[in-house]
């Protein structure tokens, strides 16, 4: 068993355990910390695949910015432990089997497609960030500009939603 495979299984185990912990923890702040564990493990997997820039963006944007926003909101709202309410019968009886069936279908589909993927897996050197940048700013420059517009819309939307004005918005 070679070293990258061991690293992969260690990181995968950390990610899956973190995701299970996200489900089982009853306090939202514990779920948020579990999610940070998952994201750091995924960043490690990206490094293993030679995607250095994506790994850095994962740590900085997901692990840093987005999760700090989550933790900030949890603390701002003083969110306590989740109160236990009766599940709707649909979620109780159909939810878990359907979710596990979805998981199984996805895993079976990708396991069945192994030959096609393996044919293409003549991976050379890890992709340098320079090539990624040239592709992002040449081939995908219009979607890139559109994302800046998306962020502008998100900023305006968040400000409109969070402002405390006299006209009460009834959500």
């Amino acid at each position: 068993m070679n070293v990258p495979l061991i690293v992969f299984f260690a990181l995968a185990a950390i990610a899956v355990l973190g995701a299970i912990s996200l489900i089982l923890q009853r306090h939202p702040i514990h779920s948020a910390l579990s999610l940070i564990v998952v994201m750091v493990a995924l960043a490690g997997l990206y490094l293993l695949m030679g995607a250095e820039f994506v790994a850095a963006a994962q740590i900085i944007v997901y692990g840093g910015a987005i999760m700090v926003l989550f933790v900030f909101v949890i603390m701002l709202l003083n969110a306590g432990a989740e109160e236990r309410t009766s599940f709707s019968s649909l979620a109780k009886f159909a939810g878990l089997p359907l979710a596990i069936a979805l998981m199984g279908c996805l895993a079976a589909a990708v396991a069945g497609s192994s030959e096609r993927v393996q044919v293409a897996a003549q991976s050379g050197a890890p992709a340098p960030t320079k090539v990624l940048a040239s592709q992002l700013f040449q081939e995908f420059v219009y979607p890139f500009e559109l994302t800046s517009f998306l962020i502008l819309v998100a900023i305006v939307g968040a400000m409109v939603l969070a402002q405390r004005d006299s006209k009460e918005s009834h959500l």
Partner: protein
Amino acid sequence: MIPTNYYLILSAILFGLGVIAFIFRRNIITIFMSIELMLNAVNLAFVAFSQAWNHLSGQVFVLFVIVVAAAEAAVGLGIIILIQRNRQSLNVERVDLLKL
């Protein structure tokens, strides 16, 4: 060299766990975090395919997904703050205005 299948199966498992969390949790913040978990699972599949086909478009898509997730987090958390302010509760069972 790790087979691409391993990454894809891990991605499927993480996505399924995200779906389970989305269905079974009652706290709206945790539900929102499970959406982020599903986005992360999809990102893992993107990078795995990018590596498998030796083509960088997958990693560019991952960057776009990260941008969309950041925008979604900003707007979604704004909505959560508004719900807490109007309902004094983070339980999704209490947000039942459209329920018969």
